């Protein structure tokens, strides 16, 4: 008699951590909505925009002055702006810059923040004290006013924006990671790693940072959304991305400049802002869903 027929036990299927995360994430309806919108948005901005240019010839540099302020129609879904440019095309090309700024600056800021947090939490003592006091100072700065002065000083542009958002965006993540590291560093697996002679850097990078991933991923997601708004705000104030290169912020700025002009349609303001709003909302939904999915214990906390 075959052994396996005696011991035929129905084993519950086992799941890896990431499979469980996916299962939980999938149940979070708002987060799934957010993730889908983000994917669609990225496809629209980076894939559809060049296709539109190739098929219709619309581009953010192609003006059509006789056709200014055209109403939304079959030829121009979202109408045209003050120079007769197709608003949809402007928005999609603008989205490229907005998403790039948000993504690059958030990733860099979280990288720096995580390193500061893990070093601070692991070493403790005067290193921790010095780093955390510095973090406190950075957190008590008036951001928006300072952004304006910095953008003016370094000349507004893509890399100035990234520099500002990285320079002033890492503190939140540093604090969160430090908190996680403080709670982890006296656990057995760290002791074990130390006992077999792992170097402090190995412990920090391979053990502590990896176990802080839940916090890191969530704060990256939320920071991307925040930085996209930040980019739009600075560009809206004329201190971010400069025309003719469109971004969601400066398209809105241009539109707001002739908000009282006769013939100006509300859609010129509505559409770029709505795309911005939808994208930021999606990142916030996704961040919330990821928090619940990555670490169910954190559920309900902000």
């Amino acid at each position, binding site marked *: 008699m075959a052994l396996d027929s005696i011991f035929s036990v129905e084993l519950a299927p086992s799941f890896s951590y990431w499979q469980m995360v996916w299962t939980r994430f999938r149940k979070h309806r*708002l987060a799934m909505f957010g993730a889908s919108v983000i994917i669609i948005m990225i496809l629209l901005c980076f894939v559809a925009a060049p296709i539109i240019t190739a098929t219709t010839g619309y581009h953010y540099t192609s003006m059509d002055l006789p056709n200014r302020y055209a109403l939304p129609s079959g030829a121009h879904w979202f109408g045209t702006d003050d120079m007769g440019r197709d608003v949809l095309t402007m928005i999609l090309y603008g989205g490229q810059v907005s998403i790039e700024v948000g993504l690059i600056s958030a990733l860099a800021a979280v990288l720096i923040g995580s390193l500061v947090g893990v070093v601070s939490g692991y070493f403790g003592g005067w290193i921790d004290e010095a780093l955390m*006091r510095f973090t*406190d*100072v950075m957190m*008590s*700065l*008036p*951001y*928006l*006013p*300072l952004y*304006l*002065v*910095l953008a*003016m*000083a*370094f000349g507004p542009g893509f890399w100035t924006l990234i520099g500002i958002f990285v320079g002033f965006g890492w503190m939140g993540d540093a604090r969160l990671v430090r908190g996680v590291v403080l709670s982890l560093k006296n656990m057995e697996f760290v002791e074990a790693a130390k006992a077999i002679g792992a170097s402090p850097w190995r412990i920090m990078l391979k053990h502590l940072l990896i176990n802080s991933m839940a916090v890191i991923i969530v704060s990256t997601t939320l920071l991307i*959304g925040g930085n996209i*708004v930040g980019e*739009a*705000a600075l560009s*809206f*104030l*004329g*201190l971010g991305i400069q025309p003719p290169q469109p971004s969601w912020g400066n398209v*809105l700025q241009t*539109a*707001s400049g002739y*908000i*009282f002009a006769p013939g100006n349609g*509300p859609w010129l*303001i*509505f559409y770029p*802002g*709505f795309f*911005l*709003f939808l994208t*930021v*909302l999606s990142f*916030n*939904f996704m961040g*919330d869903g990821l928090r619940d999915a990555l670490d169910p214990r954190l559920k*309900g*906390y*902000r």
Partner: protein
Amino acid sequence: MFTFIMRRFLQMIPILILISILAFLLLRLSGPDPAEYMIMANPRIKPEDILREKQRLGLVDANGKAVPLFIQYFYWAKGILQGEWGWSRIWPNVTAFQAIMLFLPNSLILMGLALLIAILVAVPIGIYSALKQYSAFDYIFTTGTFLGMSLPTFWLALMAIIVFHLLPARLFGAPWFPAGDLASFGKPYAGVWWDRLWHLVLPVAVLSIYSMAGWTRYMRSSMLEVIRADYVRTARAKGVPERRVIYKHALRNALIPMVTILTLSIPGLFGGALITETVFAYPGVGRMLYQAVLGKDYAVAMADILFLALLTVLFNLVADVLYAIVDPRIRYN
């Protein structure tokens, strides 16, 4: 308590010094050389005059040698402490300090109202959401807070102008609310209190939405935490009426963290008001700073940043003290 406040007060000093160093470096490294200004104003200016001006500003010493940056900082800090905040470039005959004082009252009115309305809306909704967790009400408003927190202020402000000013003006011949400014011009009622209030409606509404959304969420989670606490269960178990349990036992404790959150968010509101004030052409400190930056009025911009930093640090202190007062469990030694 007194020693606690004093100690926290002393801790403010190093933070303020660090911020002032940062502000100074920005000013010196990014701001234009005073000599450039003089050449711009008078192309035929003599080199001796430029030298004298630089000596007066402490940029070079008596022998014409450049003064090290850190010594320049001490001169500058001394000036700030003595109240010499520099003259504004774009507002004639006004010092940077006077410029702030000129626009501050308008900002305080705008933010005071926004704060009040945000609290009056957020606290009850947060409480009710928590009490009816997972109900339709809770679901709608929790999702609503996400919408509120994701709304870009400038877009919301522009849409408010379109919906409540432009469209009614086109459809009905008269706008429902003014699109900006402090008060009407050339009307018999210009500047009367209700005229000013009428002008404040849209900016206050726009400014309060973001805070409202955030605070509703805080209030909800704070209340949820308290409701599950043992002493609330005990109160119920010994037969205290539900209303009394909620308002007497739970709510009082749930409001403790709110005190801190509200206090800490006030300085941020000043910075955030910049966009609202700019879109609505409301003459407050925020719009002043924006105009100062665009006009390269570095004295005013830096004074404003120092002012806001001082405010932030001060409100951090106030939050700590308030927390110690409302929560007797906190020991401050």
